[in-house]
């Protein structure tokens, strides 16, 4: 099964660079601005979009993303708007969109129905922070039926056996959690990230992107030195919160500088 996310990563690699994955939450600060911000993200050089579904109980998220997703929910965000946003963005840009979602909204929507509607809207797969491969049989079936990527998370604490199951279960890339912790900008990216990526590659992973705590061009530069890509979330959400889509464009351009610097 061909994966656009895999192609994007492979093309970037052939160019001698890593990819930048940019996260923003759906419906924040409102549907229209969200679409504009995602387009700005794409036009400023993000290779893959990670679009978060606001959820009432986001256990993997730090304060910045929680504030934004709570605001989206308080503003009346409904799941149907997720697909509307994806359609609005894919009509303008062709950057692949992975949806990051906690599992209960998908269960309630219906796993197969969610997969079908995501595909029809133009989304390419899911990143599932609270769904491990062990519990994902329904998602395996639906993602195969509808040709969607499955991005599972790997953690520094994962055993080799679990990393292998994660690699085998994932399509698109494996999401390496850089540190034992939740999302949010940090001064330094944990040394644990590099050893986790090395372990994943040693166990056969072809594409690994690193997320959690990455907020600066220098982080992007160092991470893409050993991994397929870097995932940035809270930093972009902060930029959107304070300066709107223009702030997202500015912050993205600065991060992209981290990618290109690798070619120097």
């Amino acid at each position, binding site marked *: 099964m061909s994966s656009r996310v895999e192609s994007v990563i492979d093309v970037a690699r052939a160019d001698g660079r890593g990819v930048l994955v940019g996260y923003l939450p759906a419906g924040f600060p409102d549907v229209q601005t969200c679409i504009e911000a995602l387009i700005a993200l794409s036009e400023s050089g993000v290779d893959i979009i990670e679009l978060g579904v606001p*959820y*009432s*109980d*986001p*256990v*993997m998220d*730090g*304060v910045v993303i*929680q504030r934004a997703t*709570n605001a989206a*929910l308080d503003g009346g965000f*409904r*799941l149907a708007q997720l697909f509307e946003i994806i359609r609005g963005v894919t009509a303008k840009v062709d950057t692949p969109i992975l949806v990051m979602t*906690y*599992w*209960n*909204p*998908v*269960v*309630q*929507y219906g796993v197969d129905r969610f997969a079908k509607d995501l595909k029809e809207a133009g989304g390419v797969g899911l990143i599932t*922070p*609270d*769904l*491990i491969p*062990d*519990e994902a049989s329904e998602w395996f079936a639906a993602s195969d039926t509808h040709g969607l990527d499955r991005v*599972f*998370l*790997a*953690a*520094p*604490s*994962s*055993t080799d056996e*679990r990393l292998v199951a*994660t690699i085998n279960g994932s399509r698109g890339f494996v999401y390496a*959690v850089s540190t*034992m*912790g*939740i999302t949010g900008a940090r001064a330094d990216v944990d040394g644990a990230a590099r050893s986790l990526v090395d372990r994943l590659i040693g166990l056969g992973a072809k594409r690994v992107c690193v997320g959690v705590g990455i907020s600066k061009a220098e982080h992007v530069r160092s991470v893409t030195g050993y991994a397929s890509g870097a995932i940035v979330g809270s930093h972009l959400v902060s930029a959107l919160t304070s300066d709107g889509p223009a702030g997202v464009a500015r912050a993205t351009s600065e991060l992209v500088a981290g990618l290109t610097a690798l070619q120097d």
Partner: protein
Amino acid sequence: MSLRAELGPYFGEYGGRFVPEALIAALDELDAAYTAAKTDAVFQAELAELHRSYTGRPSIITEASRFAALAGGARILLKREDLNHTGSHKINNVLGQALLAKRLGKTRLIAETGAGQHGVATATAAALMGMSCVVYMGEVDTERQALNVARMKLLGADVVPVVHGSRTLKDAINEAMRDWVANVADTHYLLGTVAGPHPFPVMVRDFHSIIGNEAREQILEAEGRLPTAVVACVGGGSNAMGIFHAFLDDDVALIGYEAAGDGMDTPRHAATLQRGRPGVLHGAKTYVLQDDDGQTIESHSISAGLDYPGIGPEHAWLKDSGRATYVGISDAEAMQGMLDLSRTEGIIPAIETAHALAGALDLARTLSPSDIILVNLSGRGDKDMETAARYFGFLRDTQ
């Protein structure tokens, strides 16, 4: 097949581990340690001794004849978990998990708390065992339960008000999980109910199963027979699972009373099993109060301990199979139950427990004097004096 033999991670289609991968290693470690401890005579002896000389077990059974006379039907017996150290059943689980945490070399305990009872019990165990302790509590609850915050602080715990989401128990659980993800190397998350990812539902149930095991033996010895029905209040479901478990394979009715708040047909209740739908919350597949999009809906109950939009997965399974039944008791009915037991027996129950007492009276009316209802008197009402005084108008200038 024995229903008592269910070991998780699944109870029928419920349970499992819907958590970030970063927590799986800790859950595996805990599961292995718990499985070993179950058959480890040293661990079991240590826990039994703590229960004897610290908790004050076995807890007694009291016949509530004057209370039962209000219904004029079945006899009502009370399993007195309110007499345990710290005032509720919560200590049973807390001492078990704290001992396990110590075995795992953890030096820091974290916990969530709603009313503060589980937080107080955890702070107590941390003080006893020389561990540091952080308790997450929704900001709204820290205001509602200021005295319990003071108790925890007196015991040496840090109480962290949670300011995210609805700022209540469910958000305190989220925050405790976030802490655990970041600090799992030296920290044990001492979850206070039979919810959450495996192994918490089975482990917490097992640590509380001492309630039903004692009661079954006590009632057989005193009455020469099993009760007609065993009843308990249900929030997350720990005291109910603790007393139900021993009777799962017996011909005994099991009834859980959920908080119906303002009423089952209003939006303000915590009747997760009766008004919720299967979904995923806090690491397990179970019944959840939620909207069409799967967003958790805030629950409402006068008792903070039942004010939870989820439920332990084993209860979800027992409900679907019909082995246990679940009934709603409103705030007003529960407060009447609190008043009734206080004035007929001189025992002031927690408002949580009062739901089971009100339910027991309803049930007793439908039974005969030869029937026996065993109620888990899960906690005492000292902590609820402010709420009760306000509710009954015992304080001047308040209503």
